[in-house]
């Protein structure tokens, strides 16, 4: 898009793109970021750190609402969430700093290639979660026992109380650091990676994983947002329409079309994410 477009038109188109991204992100369960960040960079020529800044602000604006609902329902485990934030927050600080430092060193292309690689990884990872609702029980590790990283919830669908205990906290912390880094570096929620740590390594039931991941995404984004805001890369003129559009799209996705939110839709949109990933990599290596 040329640089001299009327600001009203530019911001209107930005909001429309964000609505579409929020809608697709909500229907696929991937989150709006994986669509909106490459679209901002590729279609709207938004500088990389400003796009990342808009991304983390969008997460702050959208995760607070879903997080609040889950916290009310007592599904998100505050204790496990807070514990894992000790890994996602430093990850996000490193990621956001890395983005700014790489851009200052004129290594934007390396960032584009890395973003493309993340998009290509997100697509297949999002399909992994097709197993059972409840994991088979595994013993907690010593840290999990010491910190009381366990809980229970009443599963309405199953009709009974489901207890759970965190299994492998060291591996989960490692994956969470990586998830935080991806979030701070690219301004996406990186929920796919967080859920991977919660499902696979902590061995939590799927509902608890999802709710706890949503709860954590806001605090992780705040770490990246703090760095980017203070470094001068949170531009509210760009971020506000993106945040509002994404929120509106995500809301429409969750309210208007609840029946569509299933595996078929996810598989349908995976090629979109893959195409965006490839497009971003091609830009990174200097091809049109």
């Amino acid at each position, binding site marked *: 898009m040329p640089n001299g477009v009327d*600001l009203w*038109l530019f*911001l209107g188109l930005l909001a429309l793109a964000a609505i579409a991204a929020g809608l697709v992100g909500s229907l696929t369960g991937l989150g709006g970021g994986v669509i909106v960040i490459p679209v901002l960079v590729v279609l709207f020529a*938004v500088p990389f750190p400003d796009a990342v800044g808009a991304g983390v602000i969008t997460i702050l604006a959208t995760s607070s609402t879903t997080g609040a609902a889950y916290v009310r329902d007592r599904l998100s485990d505050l204790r496990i969430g807070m514990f894992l934030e000790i890994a996602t*927050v430093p990850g996000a600080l490193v990621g956001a700093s890395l983005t700014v430092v790489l851009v200052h060193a004129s290594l934007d292309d390396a960032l584009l290639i890395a973003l493309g690689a993340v998009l290509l990884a997100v697509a297949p990872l999002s399909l992994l979660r097709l197993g059972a609702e409840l994991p088979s*029980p595994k013993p907690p590790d010593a840290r999990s026992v010491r910190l009381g990283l366990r809980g*229970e919830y009443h599963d309405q669908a199953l009709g009974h109380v489901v207890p759970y205990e965190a299994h492998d906290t060291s591996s989960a912390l490692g994956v969470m650091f990586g998830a935080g880094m991806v979030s701070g570096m690219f301004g996406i929620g990186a929920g796919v990676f967080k859920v991977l740590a919660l499902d696979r390594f902590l061995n939590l039931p799927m509902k608890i994983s999802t709710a706890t991941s949503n709860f954590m995404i806001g605090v992780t984004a705040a770490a990246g*947002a703090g*760095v980017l*805001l203070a470094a001068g890369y949170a531009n509210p003129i760009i971020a506000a329409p993106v945040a509002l559009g994404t929120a509106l799209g995500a809301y429409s996705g969750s309210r208007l079309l609840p029946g569509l939110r299933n595996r078929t839709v996810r598989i349908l949109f995976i090629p979109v994410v893959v195409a965006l990933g490839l497009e971003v990599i091609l830009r990174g290596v200097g091809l049109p």
Partner: protein
Amino acid sequence: MTEAPPSAPAPPPELPAAAYERMSLVLRVGLLASLVILVGGLAAYLLAHPAASSGSVLSSNPILQYLSFPGLAHGLASGSIPAYLTLGLLVLLATPLVRVLSGIYYFHHGGERTMTAVTVTVLVLLLVGILVIGPLIR
């Protein structure tokens, strides 16, 4: 699987219900306040710059001069629109910080030293990001 696992762990250490309620309230109020400021600020900015082009906002961030406390205070006092946009971003950013603060409060009151220390560390890291790392790499 339709039955609970046979070796059910001991009942979990519970956070008081009020903790969940208060956190939800903080999240909603903070979000609403920041969105009102941001939307109002954006509308005011567009009305004040009717002939602006996309290039002007892509090439420079209008809030740069308000990223210090004296700069922000002066901007707010003089009614500067970008200063209010900065305030909107700060309120949005503060919402999860308050969430972490309330976590510290409840773990501390529950006498849980390790979880209190963990949550304090998270808060300190968040503050280091905005107060130290961000300005350092600007």
